[in-house]
């Protein structure tokens, strides 16, 4: 009997690992598309050439200063959003949770509105640190509100605290925007979520935040599995619930804050990718998190490529394309599969 279960379990693991490899290959393919495709047609052979030898030609400039940074940013942001979503859903034990619930999106947006309206900053690279700081402050506020009292931050309280803080922030944001059309005009293009105008310069300063967030998230997989069993069982199993929650929220804030700072708010990736991943992997976070890390960028970079070619020479913002690519798949999966609660 034991032998049989061990056997099926190892087959399952082998299947999961194989799936992970296939997805990695798919990700590599999408990245290649991201470098190859764009509004300027560059043949694959010369793309390949200038990729390794930056000869200073126009094609080389396009590939090295536009397409490679975008693809790298897509990798980081996609992974960050999907992992933050998975983490958030596990922490709150609510499959509808998305990282924005912590107030991260509203905080970032409020800070960007302040940057445009009160400090007169324009241009996406100027918003980066405002968005990042705003996200962080909002998340701390939500956590403080959600965790006051003796029993600490339970999932329901965090969700309600996040909803309350976000509502107040959005009220302030729209009060400013409706009274100040010039700020609104800048903000509406930031608020869609887009890679446009993001270049190599913003990657190095944000990279540490992405990396720390990703490592921290992966390290939390085991305690998150324990938390899924409910607080009491998790405590009985020896998991540190409070510590896991605090670390998890720090990770969500780092990942999501950096992602919002980099390309603006893109909500659908964080919500849908972990959900779709769980349909493949089941609830084990040790698989959910790595799969999310790969599927997030596939969706984001794939959507970006599509947005570049679908409406040439104009491009469609990645935040819009992501929803139109991801949502039908999401709906189809929800119809086909048994609906799982966390």
């Amino acid at each position, binding site marked *: 009997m034991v032998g049989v279960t061990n056997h099926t379990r190892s087959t399952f693991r082998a299947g999961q690992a194989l799936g992970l490899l296939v997805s990695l290959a798919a990700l590599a393919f999408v990245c290649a598309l991201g470098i190859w495709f764009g509004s300027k047609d560059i043949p694959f052979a010369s793309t390949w050439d200038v990729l390794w030898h930056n000869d200073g030609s126009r094609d080389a400039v396009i590939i090295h200063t536009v397409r490679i940074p975008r693809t790298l940013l897509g990798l980081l942001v996609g992974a960050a959003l999907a992992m933050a979503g998975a983490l958030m859903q596990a922490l709150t034990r609510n499959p509808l949770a998305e990282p924005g619930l912590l107030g991260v999106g509203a905080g970032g947006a409020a800070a960007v509105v302040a940057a445009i309206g009160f400090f007169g900053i324009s241009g996406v690279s100027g918003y980066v640190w405002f968005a990042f700081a705003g996200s962080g402050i909002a998340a701390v506020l939500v956590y403080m*509100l959600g965790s006051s009292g003796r029993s600490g931050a339970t999932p329901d309280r965090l969700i309600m*605290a996040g909803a309350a803080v976000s509502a107040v922030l959005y009220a302030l944001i729209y*009060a400013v925007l409706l009274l100040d059309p010039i700020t609104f005009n800048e903000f509406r293009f930031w608020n869609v979520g887009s890679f446009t105008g993001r270049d190599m310069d913003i990657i190095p300063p944000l990279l540490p935040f992405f990396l720390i967030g990703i490592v921290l998230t992966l390290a939390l997989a085991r305690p998150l599995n324990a938390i899924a069993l409910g607080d009491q069982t998790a405590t009985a199993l020896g998991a540190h619930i409070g510590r896991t929650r605090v670390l998890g929220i720090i990770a969500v804030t780092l990942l999501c804050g950096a992602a919002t700072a980099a390309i603006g708010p893109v909500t659908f990736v964080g919500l849908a990718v972990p959900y779709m991943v769980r349909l493949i992997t089941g609830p084990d976070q040790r698989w959910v998190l790595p799969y999310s890390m790969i599927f997030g960028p596939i969706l984001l970079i794939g959507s970006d490529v599509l947005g570049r070619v679908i409406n040439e020479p104009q491009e469609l913002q990645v935040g819009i394309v992501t929803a139109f690519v991801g949502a039908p798949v999401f709906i189809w999966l929800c119809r086909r599969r048994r609906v799982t609660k966390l």
Partner: protein
Amino acid sequence: MSVSTAVRGRPLRIGQGRLSIRLDIRATVTCVVMLATVVGLAVFSMTTGDYPLSASEVVATILGAGPPGAEFIVLELRLPRLLAAILVGGAFGVSGAIMQRLTDNPLGSPDIIGFTMGAATGALSVIVLTGGGMLAVAGGALAGGIVTSVLIYLLAFKQGVQGFRLVLIGIGMSAMLYAANQFLITHASLRDAIAAAAWQVGGLNGRGWEHVEPLAWAMLALLPFAVFFSHRLAILQMGDDAAKALGVRVESTRFVLIMVSVALAAIGTAVAGPIAFVALASPQIARRVTGSPYPGPISAGLMGALLLLASDLTVQHAISDTQLPVGIATGAIGGLYLAWLLAREFRRR
């Protein structure tokens, strides 16, 4: 998480128990207090403004014997706006209470699961693509909301509609519609984009009888269903099998409740835009002030009306030189109040 909390209050029997209802004393008292507050705010809103009137003058005007010049202000400006605020707030509150309980999720408000997003897409299309007037926008919102909700229901239908699948499909649809709205806003002229953003925040500026009348009829038709069928929500929450064993026709009950919730949200949105946060917060606030774990449609509806009325008074009087839409105040007031309630509740436990 819910079964043990389904029944509260003391039974009230009339005629040797042939007719009996459960009466939750605290909830009833709270509802009466909320109703009184709504009436008080209504009197305040009718009597104050750039043209102050006494309460008796207002009543006389409504009866057709008021001071000269008051008729237009009372009957054409203040009264429709007051009624619109109460009815829209009530519609959102009831709609949110039903949907949150049906999906057993505090996030399951019509805001989040796509019904209002569909209405927004309809309205934004009218604003951006045709530049239509206020009634055309309301029509667009109604059409968008209905088409979206039918689509979501059909997509979620698979040997019956499971509440959770409905929410998920709604989320998928609303993500797409949100993207479509963003597309419209980024591709519109700045003027249209601001109009679209203001509509999305939700407001009551300039709402007249042509808005109030259909809204009132719809509420009159829908509220009895909401109140009657809400009693079965407690049984539905025990799970489909248990509910069937207890003699509830699960599928048809759920269908009616979903339709009532959607219709209320759709008509409210058509009139005032998807006013932020009312449908989500009203049941949550009502739950905390009535002390019952699942607020009924009446307490949630009253809370919604109260929230929207107070917010509308705030935007009219506190910041009177600008015509900010009321959705900004509902977000700020509702959010702060919910935060305060949460903080208080958290400290106690």
